[in-house]
């Protein structure tokens, strides 16, 4: 259920950020709904098969999207699957998509694809431990190690959950390939992470990748929504709206970090994760 919601919402999310960025720079901006037509156009196009490509080129977009959607399946925003340890499966399903996406980037034998691929690997190394520790801390503070049993922000667990939320926010920027980590609008190969991997993928393959990236971001927004009090779906919409504003602001007035400075930024994620976990263990 949640997966379907995400699939429907993903283009609108991306489109809204683009529209907001246009407005902030005093441009008219295309309607946020244009993304749907854009996707439909891409999906109906023929695609270019690079001479060197293997079936891995197709597995990349397929599993990137399906992995993200399957991960969304576990979010109890709407009725869905739930069992102890489901958040671990969800994060590793994202990794499944990432693995094949990185391989697909190497598949065409282009230098840019490989650059994007190892940069993505670096971001994962930096972001993953903190995120998992933060989610583990939230699960420990809740009941039963499942997403359905996550606690809601309240006075008794405020510190731990705020740390978890901060860690998830950093993770969203890293996973979604957004501003301080990656620049989604750049055409400079030297700075790209996510886009560099997609260079040789067009038409329906590109559409699947775009959808997957947006679904991934919505997944992290959904995780944050679970930790906030209130009716789930409404809170989720609120979180997504907040992210549209944050991303629009960040990508208009912020700058992308130098690639070698990424460890400095992403180490906050690890720090928040460790602190949250310590907080959950010692119950402060």
């Amino acid at each position: 259920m949640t997966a379907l919601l995400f699939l429907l919402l993903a283009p609108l999310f991306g489109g809204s950020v683009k529209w907001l960025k246009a407005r902030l720079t005093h441009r008219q901006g295309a309607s946020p709904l244009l993304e749907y037509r854009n996707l439909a156009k891409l999906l109906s196009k023929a695609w270019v098969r690079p001479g060197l490509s293997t079936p891995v080129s197709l597995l990349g977009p397929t599993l990137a999207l399906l992995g993200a959607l399957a991960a969304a399946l576990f979010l109890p925003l709407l009725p869905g699957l739930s069992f102890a340890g489901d958040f671990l499966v969800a994060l590793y399903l994202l990794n499944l998509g990432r693995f094949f996406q990185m391989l697909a980037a190497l598949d065409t034998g282009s230098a840019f694809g490989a650059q994007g691929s190892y940069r993505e690997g670096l971001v994962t190394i930096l972001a993953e431990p903190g995120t998992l520790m933060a989610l583990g801390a939230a699960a420990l503070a809740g009941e039963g190690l499942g997403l359905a049993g996550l606690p809601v922000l309240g006075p008794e667990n405020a510190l731990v959950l705020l740390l978890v939320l901060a860690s998830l926010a950093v993770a969203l920027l890293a996973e979604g390939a957004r501003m301080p980590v990656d620049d989604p609008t750049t055409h400079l190969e030297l700075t790209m992470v996510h886009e560099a991997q997609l260079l040789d993928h067009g038409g329906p393959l590109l559409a699947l990748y775009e959808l997957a990236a947006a679904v991934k971001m919505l997944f992290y927004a959904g995780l944050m929504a679970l930790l906030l009090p209130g009716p789930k779906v409404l809170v989720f919409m609120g979180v997504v709206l907040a992210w549209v504003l944050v991303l629009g602001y960040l990508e208009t007035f912020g700058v992308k970090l130098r690639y070698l400075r990424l460890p400095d930024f992403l180490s906050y994620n690890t720090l928040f994760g460790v602190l949250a976990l310590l907080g959950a263990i010692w119950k402060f």
Partner: protein
Amino acid sequence: MSEGVMVSALALVGASLVGLRGWDSRGYTWLLGLAGVGFLWAGEAVWFGEGGAAGVFLLLLGLLTLALASYLPEYLGHHPKEAPVYAFLVPLFLLAMVGVAQAPPGLPFLFFWEGMALLGYLLVALEGPKAQAGARAFFLASRLSGAGLYLAFLGQGHLGPDWIWAGLLVGFGVKAALFPFHLWLPRAHPVAISPVSALLSGAMTKLGLYGLFQAQTWFGPPPVWVGFALVLLGLFGAVYALVRGLAEEDLKGALAYSSVENLGLMLAALGGYFLTGKALFLGAFFLHQVGHALFKGLLFLGSGALSERQLSRLGGLWHRMPLLGGLVLLGMAVGAGLPPGAVFAAEWVLYQGFLFAPGLLPLGVGALALVGALALYFYVRLFGLAFLGAPRGEVALHLGPGMRFGLLVLAVFLVGLSLFPQQFLRPLGQGLYPSWIPWGLLALALGLYRWLDRRPSRSYGTWDCGFQPLTSRMQPNALGFSEPALRLFPFLRLRVGERPELDEPLERVYQGVGEGFGWATRLVQALQSGSLHFYLLLQLLTLVVVMGVVLL
């Protein structure tokens, strides 16, 4: 000992004799296959009967033997000169390993243990002069391991549990590549021929784990520090091995580092079990063993089909042999800990074990996540550089029907274990995530893949920015690909340049220990001067000291 093991032992002796007498590949295949089936039968009875650790070992050994039965004769056919020796030794090596798993503690156990070490050494050393360093490392490690075990077995009843367990930790830890003692593994395993690497890495290292696990029934429960040492060293070793392995040029060397990583996780699981007694840790421990044996066996045997193992000279292999590419991709995806692989299932259980554990143990989750992310990077590098992209050099591929069948056997079992891990964990009374999820995901992926494949497309070259056409030199090489990640770990002191270099910090420690030992022996040597007067003086001094001690 059960009938299955008896039958297998006889079959192995027979195979060994067939190998010695001459080269008869058909009879050899049948005998090895029979041995494999016997192990599986016996292991299945033990594991699903009483849930013994020996059962797991028999199962994984049986699977490897089955694969080798079809793989080995054809592989050796490509190396006719050394073939009879290997054909003679490999069954004996298998026999020694089963002996270790079946022998009662005490002298019989040590007999088989040393036999296994000796045969393993021969199998590595036989590869020729270029394997010398690796064989020497293997030999030294075996001696260290033996010393630890003698301390434990002979000291039983005289020494306290702390000393006994310290001996066991060294004795079995060396074999299981526990962190500071792991250096020998990436040196010894890659230099052996591929089937032997698969056996060494897939099966022999597991006997160290088996020994550590069984030791609690032989020597009583371990002291608390043993559990902590296993968790800490296991997790640290896993991270260290992956980082170090990221810079490995040799395909099999990298696979050996990945073995150190996987063994580190298993040791951490065992340590967690010693500390908390929770079945979750045991589930991770046993499931990971079988999963690792299967996927690492698949990868090592797969690499046996290549004539070239330097990553920077491989590339584009998929186009030449899609079957091998697909099987290796399967093995590597499982090895990277991706769902629904067996290794992921084991890690998933381990994560929960750590989260439920008391004290600071939940912090282990961070280490596990780091291992997961590094493993992703590690396997993308291996597969992407070797099998995808443009070819970088001339590589001969030989993968006949027999070798193919051996790989397929392992792949089928690996897929089976990945899709039904809960069947395997049943003796521990442990559940897993709902297994229809991966099925559903795979079915959907297949559907979407076919839809994409049928969309209209046209073939065109890779985009080259409109400059000169792309060449294979433009792809990053093996070290360039991993350089960004290696920068995060400055203790390795990576120097990239014309001649890239990588420090192995531990190497110096061992060198230092060796030099210190030499210094100490020279000191003692000074006593042996050959002068009678000096000896008389020493005797007198000894007498005085002894008298003094007695009188005071």
